[in-house]
């Protein structure tokens, strides 16, 4: 994958009314990838996306899109990108098709059949003639995506795009995003607080918590580090933690609850671990290797954010 950054933010900070919404956010979205922008509600995802789409201006820091610094008058870059921030807005008295045609007029995009194609891709061909005010929330969301991809942008900025969709609709969109990325080379940044939504399609994950960028990591790296751990169920976690730390000299473990400990050390063997615990009179109810999903990784990182 080429190492060209489609989006790069440098120390991006936004302060409104004396409140720091985001601080020193550095994002690097490479060309042709799907970037999952994860964070709990209120973490600052939408703030960052509004600044990337030029709706909000940074208080400090800079944004580079397509290698050029974004300024308040960077109108040309807007031709090359499309976005959905929060909920997509439409002219509700007009039909879905009319809304898309209007979008083409404003974008100066006049490829024949593009509206039909976009409606077809999102399964809205039949509903296209209906007024948007008669659409369900999910249909509006799909129409928003149809509008976003209509003019074949190079970059798609999507803020929680699957809000209001049922699981089947979510899957359909995930497949669509993957297809847009692989077949059309569209770079996509997609924010979400639903991890499973991003986990299966993202190439890189950026995690934001409390307005701070906590980690930016490729999915491949996530699968390589921290994904495997040993789950230990004991009756006395305090004593077990002491043995792990003091006797077995293991530092990378976490007490989950009163009976469970997770050991993040891929060097140690289960047999050696159980032997070491048994020799120190720790009763083991269960011991086994498990793999950590993105969800666990995400929670671990956001917890770090809370401690900052």
């Amino acid at each position: 994958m080429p190492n060209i950054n489609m989006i790069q933010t440098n120390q991006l900070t936004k302060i409104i009314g004396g409140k720091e919404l985001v601080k020193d956010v550095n994002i690097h979205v490479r060309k042709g990838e799907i970037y999952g922008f994860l964070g709990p509600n209120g973490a600052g995802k939408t703030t960052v996306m509004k600044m990337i789409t030029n709706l909000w201006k940074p208080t400090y820091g800079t944004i580079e899109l397509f290698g050029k610094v974004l300024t308040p008058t960077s109108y040309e870059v807007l031709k090359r990108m499309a976005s959905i921030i929060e909920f997509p807005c439409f002219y509700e008295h007009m039909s879905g098709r009319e809304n898309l045609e209007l979008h083409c007029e404003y974008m100066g995009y006049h490829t024949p059949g593009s509206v039909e194609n976009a409606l077809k891709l999102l399964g809205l061909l039949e509903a296209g003639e209906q007024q948007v005010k008669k659409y369900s929330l999910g249909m509006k969301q799909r129409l928003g995506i149809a509008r976003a991809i209509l003019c074949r942008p190079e970059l798609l900025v999507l803020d929680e795009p699957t809000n209001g969709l049922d699981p089947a609709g979510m899957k359909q969109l995930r497949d669509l995003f993957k297809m847009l990325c692989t077949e059309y080379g569209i770079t996509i940044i997609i924010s979400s607080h639903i991890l499973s939504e991003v986990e299966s399609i993202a190439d890189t994950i950026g995690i934001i918590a409390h307005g701070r960028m906590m980690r930016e990591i490729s999915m491949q790296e996530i699968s390589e580090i921290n994904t495997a751990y040993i789950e230990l169920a004991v009756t006395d976690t305090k004593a077990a933690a002491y043995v792990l730390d003091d006797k077995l000299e293991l530092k990378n473990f976490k007490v989950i609850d009163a009976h469970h400990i997770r050991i993040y050390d891929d060097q140690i063997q289960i047999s050696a671990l159980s032997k070491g615990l048994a020799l120190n009179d720790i009763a083991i109810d269960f011991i086994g290797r498990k793999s950590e999903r993105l969800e666990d990784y995400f929670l671990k990182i956001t917890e770090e954010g809370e401690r900052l």
Partner: protein
Amino acid sequence: MIKLIRLEWRKNNNLKYIQYAGIMTVILLLFMIMMARELEAEETIALYGKGMLDSSVELFAHMSYIIFTGVMIAAVLVSAYEKKTINLMFSYPIKRSTIILAKVCAVWIFNFLAMVVSKIVIYLVLIATKSFTGITAESIPVGDALFLLNIVLKSAAMVSISFIALPIGLKMKSSKATIVASVIIACLTQGNIGSATLVNNIPFYVILFIAVAVSIYLSVYNIETKDLL
């Protein structure tokens, strides 16, 4: 700019506003016919002068259209902020000030043309119904260039004055506030308390035009660098 104005008309369903303007013209017309009939027009004109009839038409048309323009400002400009469709507009590769000015022009041109057409239609129908209203063509010199120029200039002035409501609506992000402001503007500029009126008060109109210029300037001032909250 012309394309943007056309698109504004298209998406704001201009046909609907043409119908509303038509209905308003018919109501104004019926009101004027009934009033002319009631006052036995030619006798009243003889008593108060020829200007009496056209100033009545102008007064009611101005009041109606100042409020009508306010409604359109609310629908085309202020509600774009309320319904957040302006976020979509500002995501297009077009200067934000151009987008706002296109909306202003779309409302201004529509209302100016509608007001001129309304007035001319009212005058023509009043003449056509002279047997009923008692008005003669001499009282309403529709063919006179000065008379027509007067219609055009006053219509342009009144539609422009309506835009004082724009920054109020934008500041409060409220369509209702825009319409209430336009009603107040209509009452202030066209109403009277006893014999006191500001209808032909030149300094007052000069102040209003300055206010209009400031209003439109304020609505686009710094717009490129402002956050869209």
